[in-house]
């Protein structure tokens, strides 16, 4: 099974190399219809900028109707060339539901499986990862993150051993809602990690001050959670019934508010992937289209932020 893992890993790296060879760096971000991908600093492997979150939305238990609906969402995600699916043992049955979908749909090469370990560590890191792999129906995870920095020292030591043994490919840490940023920064600055997942969206930009610059400096890939602030942002904008400003349509292809909010996030140079969660295929389609170029410039991003502030 390790053989399968190595082959898949090698294919991804080969794809990354070919992409880098075929296109200049700027062109990777300028392709017109395909999902924009950004290279993971630790490996150069390209990662589609729009992923799939599962908090609340994928916790459906054994309900056959909802299982089928979530499988359709995952199917649409892969049809769009989606990569990163993020879950956690704290998300109830979400890891089982992903496992159900992957069993039904198969595991495309684009899948980038991201899970988390959480408290209490107590020497259980390997067991937690093994149990989650069983629930997903995968042999290995691409990324395992330490949920909310819980017991991070113990988890990190164990995850490094798993990475060295080829059981996982990348290690990360997570936080959300702007919590524990000082400790998060300390871990980013002092430990060898590949990914940092944090809350970043157009109304929660605290990470821009220290964490995102630090991520670039340290070569850490960033996953932005809560891109719609738990759904409030996109629902609020849709409820107002206002159209996306014409300049945003023309300058960065924002046809919908989903485009507007997600493009703002993933166009930040330090952010590699945003992980909106949804239960509906039409919303998934909207989210995935936001990953297409063009992306807003720095000037355009500031204009976007000011627009939201004035609403």
């Amino acid at each position: 099974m390790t053989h399968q893992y190595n082959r898949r890993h090698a294919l991804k790296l080969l794809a990354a190399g070919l992409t880098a060879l075929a296109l200049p760096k700027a062109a990777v971000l300028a392709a017109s219809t395909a999902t924009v991908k950004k290279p993971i600093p630790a490996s150069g492997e390209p990662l589609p900028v729009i992923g799939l979150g599962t908090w609340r939305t994928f916790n459906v238990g054994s309900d056959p109707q909802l299982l089928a609906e979530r499988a359709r969402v995952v199917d649409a995600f892969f049809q769009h060339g989606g990569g990163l699916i993020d879950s956690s043992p704290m998300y109830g049955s979400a890891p089982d539901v992903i496992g159900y979908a992957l069993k039904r749909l198969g595991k495309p090469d684009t899948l980038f499986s991201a899970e988390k370990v959480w408290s209490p560590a107590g020497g259980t890191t390997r067991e937690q990862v093994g149990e989650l792999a069983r629930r997903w129906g995968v042999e290995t995870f691409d990324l395992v993150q330490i949920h909310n920095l819980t017991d991070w020292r113990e988890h990190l030591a164990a995850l490094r051993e798993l990475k060295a043994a080829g059981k996982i490919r990348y290690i990360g840490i997570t936080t959300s809602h702007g919590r524990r940023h000082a400790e998060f920064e300390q871990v980013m600055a002092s430990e060898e990690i590949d990914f940092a997942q944090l809350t970043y969206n157009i109304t929660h930009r605290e990470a821009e001050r220290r964490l995102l610059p630090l991520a670039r400096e340290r070569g850490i890939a960033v996953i932005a959670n809560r891109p719609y602030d738990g759904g409030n942002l996109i629902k609020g904008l849709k409820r107002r019934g206002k159209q996306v400003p014409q300049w945003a349509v023309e300058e960065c292809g924002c046809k919908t508010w989903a485009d507007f909010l997600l493009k703002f996030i993933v166009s930040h140079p330090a952010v590699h992937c945003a992980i909106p969660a949804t239960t509906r295929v039409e919303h998934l389609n909207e989210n995935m289209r936001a990953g297409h170029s063009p992306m807003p410039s720095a000037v355009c991003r500031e204009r976007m932020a000011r627009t939201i502030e004035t609403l």
Partner: protein
Amino acid sequence: MSDWSSYRLQDLIPFTQEVYLRLLQRVSEDTWPLQIALLVLGLAAFALALAHRNRLALIFLAPAWICSGLVFHLQHYAELNWAAPYLGLAFLAQGVILSLLGLTGVGIDRQKSFGNLPALIGLSSVLIGVVAYPLIAPLAGFSWMQAESFGVHADPTALTTLGFCLVVLRRTALWLASIIPLSGALLSGLTLLALALPWASALLGMLGVILTALVWKTVASARGVSDGS
């Protein structure tokens, strides 16, 4: 503390409104037509309380808690919420508590009048829990299969039992038998609130009234009035 203060109620509920409504529906589908039998059981317990057969009324309630604990919490809700297995065990314990109080007669209220406020609130809560609660979801525009019924779903079971407690128990036994339904229904009310379900306020409001009545009865009991002591 600063970490916890940054959480909103919605951040603590790990599923969506759609999933919760499906949960209610699946529980109903899996138990139908048991709801009819439990409705009859609830009304029979109500009649027993009116006839001052308080011990028997409590014993009649016990199966409802066992059933709801097993079917709602342990069999279904546990798939979605890590707290549900604990709630399920608490529901089973509540069934035991009600049975023991009924069998031993400890803490039974001997007063014959229903003319005091706690008793009136109690009788109203019983009728709301058994008869009116199943109508809430359909009246709010949801399907009949999403209706919550006494003895199957947690909230009407808790409301009904709190009503009985106000009528048939006193002092320590009153609180002993009320703490689990009160805590369970409060957690549930907050969950409904986070999920923006329209009957959340009604449930929490009723709990507020019932809690006031519990305190009222306790104070009156301590003063030796209106509780038959």
